[in-house]
């Protein structure tokens, strides 16, 4: 077990080094950071939103959109690079199992996405913290209640987004393990992410609480094959209205996320095990 972890970590390390050098990563990283920083300039359009909510939304949006794109494209790209360049030949000829290989790829890509989330969240925290302090001062002067802004909640939200991206990476790895081309993996992976965002809606529309039976069970399983990615979008509540998040919500969301990561990695290993390199 220790040796297996050792090998997976080495695969992860090299995958991380490879990913962090990609121009695509740098591009989306800069774009995401620019979006967070630009929110300060676009505040004039906030239409009386809680200003902090407006700032936060830009940050949440950047993490969501660019993180998802990175998760899908980078995973497919790094996987197929090993296949197309035939480095997979060299690696899998060593005493490295396919499960260890996939685990290593997952950890490496997830680590890069962790850097992405951490930096963007730190930028957002700086923007929110600075503006919240200013607004709190103004509120004291006007004898109003200061706006709520929980930076610890932002840290929790960042962790949730990192986990969400982990689910996406695991899902795309499962698709890539079966796919023949990079483009197919990207397209299907993106569709799977989209479906994951809409999974809650399919549940609401298709699963009527009163119905039971085999059909209902089949529909239930079908709608739950894909993870419900909407459950990770708790930014508004965690950062701006912490009292809205009930105790016990976050542990369940984290557990659900981890479970999906494991399930998709198992599926990926199963699909990859007989693949001809």
């Amino acid at each position, binding site marked *: 077990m220790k040796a297996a972890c050792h090998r997976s970590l080495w695969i992860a390390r090299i995958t991380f080094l490879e990913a962090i050098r990609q121009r695509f990563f740098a591009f989306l990283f800069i774009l995401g950071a620019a979006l967070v920083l630009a929110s300060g300039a676009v505040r004039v*359009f*906030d*239409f*009386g*939103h809680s200003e902090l*909510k*407006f700032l936060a*939304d*830009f940050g*949440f*949006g950047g*993490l*969501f*959109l660019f993180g998802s794109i990175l998760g899908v494209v980078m995973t497919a790209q790094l996987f197929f690079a090993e296949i197309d360049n035939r480095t997979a030949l060299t690696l899998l000829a060593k005493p490295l199992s396919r499960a260890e290989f996939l685990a290593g790829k997952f950890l490496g890509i997830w680590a890069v996405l962790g850097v992405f989330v951490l930096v963007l969240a730190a930028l957002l925290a700086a923007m929110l913290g600075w503006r919240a302090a200013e607004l709190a001062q103004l509120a004291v002067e006007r004898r109003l*209640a200061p706006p709520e802004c929980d930076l610890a909640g932002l840290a929790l939200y960042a962790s949730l987004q990192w986990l969400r991206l982990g689910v996406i990476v695991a899902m795309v790895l499962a698709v890539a393990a079966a796919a023949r081309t990079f483009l197919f993996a990207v397209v299907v992976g993106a569709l799977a992410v*989209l479906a994951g*965002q*809409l999974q*809650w*809606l399919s*549940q*609401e*529309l298709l699963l009527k609480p009163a119905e039971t039976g085999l059909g209902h069970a089949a529909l*239930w*399983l079908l709608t*739950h*094959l894909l*993870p*419900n*990615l*909407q*459950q990770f*979008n*708790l*930014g*508004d*509540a*965690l950062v701006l209205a912490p009292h*809205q*998040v*009930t105790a*016990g*919500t976050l542990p*369940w*969301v984290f*557990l*659900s996320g981890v*479970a*999906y990561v*494991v*399930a998709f990695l*198992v*599926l990926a290993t*199963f699909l990859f095990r007989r693949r001809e390199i």
Partner: protein
Amino acid sequence: MRRALPWVGLFALFLAVGVLADQSWRRARLALPEIGRRELEPTVGQGVLLGVLGGFRTVVADFTWIRGYVLWERKNDRAGTELLMRAACALDPRSRFFWENTGLAVANDMGHWEIRRRGGYAKVPKEIQDHLLRGYAQRGMVLLDEGIVSTGGDAALLATAALVAELQLKDLGRSADYYRRAAEARAAPWFAARFAAANLWKEGRRREAYVWYRAHWLKVLRLAEDGSPDDLKELRDMEHELRLPLLQRLPQQSWEVSQPGFVPRTNEGVTAPSPVGGQSRK
């Protein structure tokens, strides 16, 4: 059979994960009001928008609002204006601003646009004008009600609904009800309680107005730094109008004596005592 075993295992794994995910979603959705509120039940279109845009939706809402606002300024595309403004509300249902301004646009403006579209005030008969204005006012109220639910009972939105009910629908009772809810909500506007009592009073429900206003002053307004002297003055006027016996009136406050225009109350002109909060009305 042996070949099917791994697939069975995968099936069981995803089944277990699905059960876990269900439990997680049950809790998480409560923190997502735009999804979690059963009474909202977003349409498929709204649901797709919420799902697809994720964290970006409120930014998209703002830009949708800008477009709707431009159409509002032009005043020649009622349907387009309403559609865009409603879209902004759907994308960011927690924003009071969108609900408030959409409700006001529909309630106050669109009736007049429709009259103009039909030929103008000289051409359209008065009954039709009233019907249209009332119809759009009702529509605006429905929107405001939806907004009140989405925003969790925002006090300012309740006050806006009260204003529309009073000015457009001429329904003082309904207006008073909204003002009362606004007064009892978080961050209540300073005037909400006063207007609630005033509208109830104007509707002839004077005793009810006083009882509620008095209870609210004792519970909430009195705790303000200055003790809400203006509200207390209104209550004193009500007590005088209702000719309440001294014992049924609010006790004199220590700081009241120093207030400008203070008039000590007496039992002069008081009618037969009636219990505070009773149903007798003048």
